[in-house]
């Protein structure tokens, strides 16, 4: 039969139910009359005929029910009936309902929020057409762990031109420039790329044209493609913008195009896109690693094939250029994977953790339902005796669960909405796409499924138990199941305790490693230090003299801020995310070029070390005499001395550096040794570092650092002072150094807070569950306890007896949880610093917390047990 008629027949009978019931009744009456007539005709007395007819037909109501159950609509009807009945039951037990719905809402809400985060960060495809084909190509150190570093232009050109697996490939790097010539200098995010960017990202300008390959040459590179937002802000969205000129760092750039509104590259977005203008001698710069490379795979090519392809090319390059490429390799991976490499494990661990929370919530509700099922035994047995099938009863109990799940799910969505707002506002900024988290369609689906799943999970055991009731149980009025139910409930509780213990242990380890990290000395003192980035337009500051003069002026001006004790400047600043390194050779030691060591390079003013409180350990620090024209000098960090001068004799040695970070080749004599700084954060290692005087560096951007009690609160006036020197200079926001330190721990704090919250939630739920079960067992045993007291049991004995049961449950759960924790905390090993996964102190403390909470949860009902008056208890029932 056609689906249509199945549906229409069903609907018709649903709507004409009343008429059809009437017809059926009449039909049955006629049938009964005929039967009676027939019997009378066969010679029975009318009474006897009636009796026999009734016997033969059986219960008319049951018969009607049988007829009704033909067709799908009957299932819906009985479901609606169940829903109505269930709703009535839930309303009648408002206390139970509120607790169950809240418990579920917390579990489901936490899961929904966590899933939304994972959906936005890990699952949602990148916002480019056919983004799965975009692969990251990165230089890596030969035979070392893959870590997708930057690449040199010649390597990039060779990969691009020789590969057989990529359709297109491009290189890029980003920087910040000043938009000048339009009032106050403005900060602009600039992305420099090769011409392949448009075809690789499959994104094209809505206005104007793309870069041409020949524009990737110095001199031809002064063209710019605008982002949609920049176009709107600067040109009011006028199509006339194309062909106009804008000043970036005081250089003219011709606008050639505008990108679509939705286009963002990188994911955080850029304001302008400019071609990289390579110098003519670019092919000689094989050692200059500063480009990031992305490619679009040819149709049908897998990442692994591309990886092999490029590794083959790189093997050739190693042979061709042993001096520069000998230690380099290349790796290819899906871009989306590389982006989330660091956060994936943490987010998945958190998702697993909330999964456990919802399991605990389900166990709790299951427990509550079981407790209620025991009191409802009579009702259910009665319905069974009246002819309700086992399946029908189980369905009824499951429907009640479903109602709870729907209410819990809806409330959970609301909680998740709030949680996500908080996550977007306060979450760490370095998790890609965390800011774009929303409750979208797939999250709704997830919430629906997890709600239904929980309904099944917590409804199943009670449903099975209720359907297993025997109608004959009604006769024996005291059903023997409570004790058995208590055992079942104890097992559920043990499970809850074990899961809580696991989560607590994980959270404890994260907290301990976070606290440990906060205490780590990064090699400088961030308190009372304000930092301001400065970037000079190089058209105006095109000589080293002009630069030196500006830096001196800026530091002098900054020291006029009240209560300032020292002002310095440096580039790059620790925790700024910027870094700079160069290879060098040591005069007097003959090292072939390919084996040249490399180290981090910083430029710093004399007082930088005073502001940051980086100690000068040997020799001298920089002085104002180390200026342009004076002999070039260097400071070495302690770890640089350890690494490159094992004999400790560093002072007086002369080093030659290659070109790096805007500095020309230069040399210098080591005049002092300073303390190590953890440049990339307290969880990073101290790297060998050399400092050059800022005045001798010729750098056109640096960060001014200002120390003074309370200087942090004067950030605006400090910034204004610097702006007033020259309005063409790009003056960044004034950021307290402590904020940079906090930001560097942002991800860790985020993970710690979330896992901590989940663990606390789990423990609370488990404690409430424990409290409920013990209270219930006390209520059940009121008589028994009364008898014991009457026979002379002391309060202490009663207290101990009740507590023992609860603490046994908690203890067994704790042991199981401890074992699970030992087995599973390995998954968060990557998130721990300075703490082993089986850290006895952490595990001991969390176990103590769990036992303490369990103790309180048991003590409250146990105390109630001690107050049982035997006379009252014995009179019960």
């Amino acid at each position, binding site marked *: 039969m056609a689906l249509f008629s199945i549906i229409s027949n069903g609907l018709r009978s649903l709507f004409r139910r009343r008429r059809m019931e009437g017809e059926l009744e009449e039909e049955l009456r006629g*049938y009964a*009359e005929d039967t009676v007539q027939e019997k009378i005709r066969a010679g029975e007395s009318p009474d006897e005929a009636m009796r026999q007819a009734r016997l033969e037909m059986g219960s008319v109501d049951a*018969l009607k029910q049988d007829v009704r159950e033909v067709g799908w609509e009957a299932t819906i009807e009985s479901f609606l009936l169940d829903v109505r009945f269930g709703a009535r039951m839930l309303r009648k037990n408002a206390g139970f309902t509120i607790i169950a719905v809240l418990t579920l809402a917390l579990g489901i809400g936490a899961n929904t929020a966590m899933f939304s985060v994972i959906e936005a960060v890990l699952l949602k495809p990148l916002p480019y057409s056919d983004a799965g084909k975009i692969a990251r190509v990165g230089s890596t150190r030969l035979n070392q762990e893959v870590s997708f570093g930057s690449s040199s232009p010649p390597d990039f050109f060779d990969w691009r031109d020789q590969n057989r697996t990529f359709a297109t490939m491009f290189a890029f790097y980003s920087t910040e420039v000043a938009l000048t010539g339009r009032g106050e200098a403005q900060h602009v995010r600039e992305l420099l790329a090769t011409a392949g960017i448009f075809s690789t990202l499959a994104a094209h300008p809505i206005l104007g044209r793309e870069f041409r390959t020949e524009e990737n040459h110095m001199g031809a590179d002064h063209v710019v493609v605008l982002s949609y937002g920049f176009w709107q802000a600067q040109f009011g969205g006028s199509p006339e913008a194309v062909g106009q000129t804008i000043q970036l760092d005081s250089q003219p750039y011709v606008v050639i195009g505008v990108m679509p509104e939705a286009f963002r590259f990188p994911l955080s977005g850029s304001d302008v896109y400019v071609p990289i203008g390579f110098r003519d001698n670019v092919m000689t710069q094989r050692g200059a690693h500063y480009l990031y490379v992305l490619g679009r795979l040819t149709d049908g090519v897998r990442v692994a094939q591309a990886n092999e392809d490029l590794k083959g090319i790189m093997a050739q390059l190693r042979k061709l250029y042993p001096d520069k490429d000998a230690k380099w390799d290349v790796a290819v991976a899906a871009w989306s994977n590389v982006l989330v490499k660091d956060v994936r494990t943490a987010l998945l661990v958190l998702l697993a953790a909330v999964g456990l929370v919802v399991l605990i919530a389900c166990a709790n509700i299951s427990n509550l339902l079981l407790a209620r099922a025991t009191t409802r035994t009579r009702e259910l047995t009665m319905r069974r005796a009246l002819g309700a099938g086992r399946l029908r009863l189980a369905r009824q109990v499951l429907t009640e669960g479903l109602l709870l799940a729907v209410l819990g799910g809806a409330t959970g969505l609301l909680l998740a909405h709030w949680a996500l707002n908080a996550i977007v506002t306060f979450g760490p900024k370095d998790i890609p796409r965390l800011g774009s988290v929303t409750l979208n369609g797939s999250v709704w689906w997830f919430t629906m499924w997890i709600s239904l799943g929980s309904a099944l999970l917590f409804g199943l055991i009670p449903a099975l138990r209720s359907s297993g009731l025997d109608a004959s149980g009604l006769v024996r009025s005291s059903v023997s199941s409570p004790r058995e139910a208590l055992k079942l409930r104890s097992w559920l509780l043990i499970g809850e305790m074990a899961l809580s213990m696991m989560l607590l242990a994980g959270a404890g380890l994260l907290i301990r490693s976070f606290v440990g990290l906060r205490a780590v000395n990064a090699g400088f003192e961030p308190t009372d230090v304000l930092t301001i980035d400065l970037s000079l337009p190089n058209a105006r500051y095109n000589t080293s003299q002009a630069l030196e003069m500006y830096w001196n002026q800026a530091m002098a001006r900054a020291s006029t801020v009240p209560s300032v004790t020292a002002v310095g400047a440096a580039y790059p600043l620790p925790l700024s995310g910027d870094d700079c390194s160069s290879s060098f050779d040591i005069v007097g030691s003959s090292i072939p070029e390919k084996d040249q060591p490399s180290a981090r390079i910083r430029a710093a003013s004399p007082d930088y070390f005073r502001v940051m409180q980086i100690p000068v350990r040997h020799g001298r620090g920089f002085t104002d005499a180390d200026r342009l024209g004076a002999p070039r000098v260097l400071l070495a960090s302690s770890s640089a001395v350890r690494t490159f001068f094992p004999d400790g004799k560093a002072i007086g040695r002369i080093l030659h550096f290659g070109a790096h970070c805007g500095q020309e080749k230069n040399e210098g004599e080591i005049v002092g040794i300073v303390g190590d700084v953890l440049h990339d954060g307290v969880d990073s290692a101290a790297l060998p570092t050399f400092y050059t005087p800022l005045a001798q560096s010729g750098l056109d951007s640096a960060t001014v650092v200002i120390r003074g009690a309370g200087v942090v609160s004067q950030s605006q006036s400090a910034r204004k002072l610097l702006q007033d020197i020259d309005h063409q200079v790009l003056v960044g926001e004034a950021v307290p150094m402590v904020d940079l330190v906090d930001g560097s721990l942002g991800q860790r704090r985020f993970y710690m807070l979330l896992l901590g919250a989940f663990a606390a939630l789990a423990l609370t739920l488990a404690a409430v569950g424990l409290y409920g079960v013990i209270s219930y067992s006390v209520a059940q045993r009121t008589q028994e306890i009364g008898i014991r007291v009457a026979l002379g049991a002391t309060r202490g004995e009663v207290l101990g007896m009740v507590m023992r049961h609860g603490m046994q449950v908690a203890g067994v759960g704790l042991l199981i949880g401890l074992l699970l924790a030992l087995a599973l905390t390995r998954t968060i090993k990557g998130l721990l610093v300075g703490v082993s996964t089986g850290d006895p102190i952490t595990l001991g403390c969390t176990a103590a917390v769990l036992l303490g909470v369990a103790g309180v949860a048991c003590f409250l009902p146990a105390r109630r047990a001690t107050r049982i008056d035997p006379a009252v208890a014995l009179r019960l029932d």
Partner: protein
Amino acid sequence: MSPKSEKLQGIVQGTLDMLILKTLALEPMHGYGIGQRIEQISNGVFRVNAGSLFPAFWRLERKGWIKGEWRATENNRRAKYYLLTDAGRKKLQSETREWRAQSTAIARILEAERGEV
């Protein structure tokens, strides 16, 4: 268990449907009559009670093989007569064909003697 069927226990649902269709193929009939007719024709082998008949009517009507119509009976009582529809007639034919084929096959198997195979 509700007292549903005594003699019909061995009859599969589909078979009862076929018997009802066949009865209605002879002439339109009301519920009681159909039960009587089945009992008569089968020489009392099948005694179908109301508990089986009415759900079956409902089912067949839902499938569109029979349809109900209120008419007056010979004793002038209003009763719901069931009529075979075209679809029902077709269904009966195909069912009958299949039944014949099956029963012949089963009979042959049951009566098979040694050496015959």
